[in-house]
């Protein structure tokens, strides 16, 4: 593994600076040429690239230790079981939770659906209210709309200020005695806004409501502490945090998970089965029915170790530096409109539009210069409506991006302008 301490030591106090060149060597895909240009990958908000350590861990598992878990009494099965359980421990440690409060799922969407079905369907009643926000990803809107339809509950949405922050006065007005659940994104996948989840959690708990956090865009980029946030549920995806696809997680407070019925039924989630009925397995297996994604789970464990090796404070500080640089450069371009708050209050996501240019055309032309950004509605159609736009371009950063890549983005945007305006 590469030495990651920068010799300059220009980092803020209490954290080691990130040596981005050393980090980049851990991600071989970054050496690729796309359309004869070096790849500039600015879509980590959709999915991050993978370090060699993660890829190698999965390969080694399949080459040397693969067997089904929790079944065999032979060496291979025990090795596989141990590695898969250890991955829960690694993730638990990463988010400051017990290992058995961490349920492995497919992704954030499945985690939120687990809460919706296993908690929502059994606890929501007619007249109850679920409170979300207009900046949510569809995965934190659609499940609640469906549960509301089935139970007679209603979903209400906290709006945003012109600066792209949550309207906290409206939050205080909406979260009331009828509120049974509050579910909020930690970081917006479009605006990049870092939401005050501790404060919102206090408001929810003061009304006796359950508090759920969509952490898909926060956990890859900053230190998240379940005890400090004091949420009841926290949903996240592995593939956005250097882990494999097909693996994600749901943290649930022990007392919540213990009281809940399972989401999926079948093998490995039972304690005892008779023809008359069944009893459920211990946490977290009660919520992990069937053979799980073992290799992907092991890969996720290695991913969080990789991030811990870099230090989440260092990752966050470095990304903040990138975002400040990108915001400054993009703001200096007169025909670029940026959505969301100032650099100080946002994560590594910048959504923007070039006046008179459709986001898809911008992204297609940038691709010709090797620059990969996302274009479209970013699974946040209600927010697009709120912003009165059809879609937007989105550049999102990770700790392997560089300031030079931001220059490349700005230059390539110049090419877009020349091509579309002529």
């Amino acid at each position, binding site marked *: 593994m590469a030495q990651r301490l920068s010799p300059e030591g220009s980092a803020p106090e209490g954290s080691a600076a990130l040596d981005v060149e050393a980090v980049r060597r851990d991600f071989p895909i970054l050496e690729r040429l796309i*359309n004869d240009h070096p790849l500039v990958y600015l879509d980590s908000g959709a999915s991050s690239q993978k370090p060699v350590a993660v890829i190698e861990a999965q390969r080694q598992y399949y080459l040397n230790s693969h067997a089904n878990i929790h079944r065999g009494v032979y060496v291979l099965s025990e090795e596989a079981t141990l590695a898969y359980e250890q991955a829960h421990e690694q993730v638990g440690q990463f988010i400051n939770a017990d290992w058995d409060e961490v349920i492995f799922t497919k992704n954030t969407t499945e985690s939120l659906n687990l809460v919706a079905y296993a908690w929502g369907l059994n606890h929501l009643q007619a007249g109850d209210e679920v409170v979300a926000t207009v900046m949510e990803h569809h995965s934190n809107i659609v499940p609640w709309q469906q549960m509301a339809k089935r139970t007679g509950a209603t979903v209400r949405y906290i709006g945003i200020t012109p600066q792209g922050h949550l309207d906290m006065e409206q939050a205080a007005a909406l979260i009331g005695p009828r509120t049974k659940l509050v579910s909020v994104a930690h970081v917006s996948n479009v605006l990049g806004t870092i939401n005050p989840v501790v404060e919102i959690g206090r408001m929810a708990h003061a009304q006796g409501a359950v508090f759920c956090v969509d952490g898909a865009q926060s956990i890859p980029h900053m230190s998240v502490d379940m005890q400090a946030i004091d949420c009841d549920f926290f949903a996240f995806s592995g593939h956005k945090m250097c882990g494999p696809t097909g693996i994600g997680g749901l943290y649930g407070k022990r007392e919540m998970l213990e009281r809940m019925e399972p989401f999926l039924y079948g093998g490995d989630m039972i304690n005892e089965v008779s023809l008359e009925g069944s009893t459920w397995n211990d946490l977290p297996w009660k919520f992990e029915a069937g053979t799980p994604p073992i290799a992907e789970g092991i890969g996720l464990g290695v991913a969080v170790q990789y991030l811990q090796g870099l230090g989440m404070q260092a990752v966050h500080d470095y990304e903040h530096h990138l975002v400040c640089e990108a915001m400054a450069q993009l703001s200096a371009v007169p025909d670029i409109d940026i959505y969301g708050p100032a650099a100080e209050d946002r994560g590594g996501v910048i959504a923007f539009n070039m006046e008179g240019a*459709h986001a898809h055309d911008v992204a297609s032309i940038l691709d010709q210069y090797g620059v990969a950004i996302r274009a479209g*509605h970013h699974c946040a159609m209600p927010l697009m409506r709120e912003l009165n736009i059809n*879609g937007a371009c989105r550049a999102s950063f990770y700790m392997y991006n560089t300031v030079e890549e931001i220059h490349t983005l700005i230059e390539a945007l110049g090419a877009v302008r020349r091509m*579309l305006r002529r």
Partner: protein
Amino acid sequence: MNLDMYQERIMDHYENPYHRGTLEAPTLECHNHNPLCGDEVCIQAHLDGEGRVSEAYFEGEGCVISLAAASLLMEAVEGKSLAAVKSMTRQDMLDLLGIRLTTMRVKCAMLPLRTLEKAIYLYEAQSSA
């Protein structure tokens, strides 16, 4: 470099589109959108006495590719029978554009033709009812 997606002919259709606008009392009409990107297009047409497209107009908001495709399509379907329009394939549309598109952008290119097809089905369903 593969920038032929935005070649002269395509940009001309985008900047000076053929039959962009709306018709009074159209025989065919359909409003449609691409759920992937939010692009919207509305296509209207008049038919002549023999049931051929006498004129077709489009209006909408979208990218260069979808709007250029709409413009090219409005030109191409003039004088065609409904059966001939319905038999148009994805390849026919790509041939009209004459550019190489990435998979995702093919969806942009297909929005106008899909919308016109839908307009025809709606019209035929109404007239047979």
